[in-house]
């Protein structure tokens, strides 16, 4: 066992379904491996902390996105994104795949992060900007700003920006 506990920090800037996975997967796994983990949620990443959240994927500008379908892979041309309901349908398809492949739901990973004492910091400035209060968020996040994050980053072995 390592002599001293390692630390990891992650800045979470995006709140879509697909972008929500990497920070929560890495945070929960690092916590399981004995690291002290801090996640700093800013801009659209804040929405991952909302009590009432329904993360979606966007097909727009996602040129490499292909979903498996009937043994093939279906591309998602940008034009499709303009059609109402396409992003919602793609999100449903993605969530069905997630379930079918035994991948954790984002809610499940978020719960695991809270349960494993991952420190959650909600960026105060973005909270003001988007008019959120802690009452809109799940139990657990604290408020902080850039200095709070930098202090944490100086003490961390791994610092990620996602």
């Amino acid at each position, binding site marked *: *066992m390592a002599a001293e506990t390692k630390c990891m920090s992650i800045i979470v800037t995006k709140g879509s379904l697909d972008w929500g996975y990497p920070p929560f997967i890495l945070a*929960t*796994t690092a916590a*399981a*491996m004995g690291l002290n983990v801090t996640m700093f949620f800013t801009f659209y990443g804040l929405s991952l902390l909302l009590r009432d959240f329904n993360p979606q994927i966007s097909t727009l500008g996602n040129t490499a996105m292909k979903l498996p379908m009937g043994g093939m892979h279906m591309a998602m041309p940008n034009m499709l994104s303009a059609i109402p309901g396409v992003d919602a349908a793609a999100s449903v398809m993605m969530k069905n795949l997630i379930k079918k*492949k035994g991948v*954790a739901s984002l809610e499940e990973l978020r719960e695991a992060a809270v349960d494993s004492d991952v420190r959650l910091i909600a960026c105060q400035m973005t909270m003001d900007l988007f008019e959120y209060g802690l009452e809109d968020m799940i139990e657990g996040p604290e408020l902080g700003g850039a200095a709070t994050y930098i202090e944490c980053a100086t003490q961390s072995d791994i610092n990620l920006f996602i």
Partner: protein
Amino acid sequence: MADQVLDAKGLNCPLPILKAKKALNSVPTDGTLEVLSTDPGSVADFQAFCRTTGNDLLEHDQTDDVYRFLIKKTG
């Protein structure tokens, strides 16, 4: 026979590791946990998990599509 068995078959990354960590919490020191998984990625992951946490990976093998890991809890 392991002190505890965790069936993580059908689960994908990072669930086998997260559930193994949770299960290890209730295994006594020097006790063992057997994990069964169907995730091919778990082969590398359980080795990395044990190296980092200091637990001993006593055995790992594969029968058909099922990977088996025997972990000894050291601390």
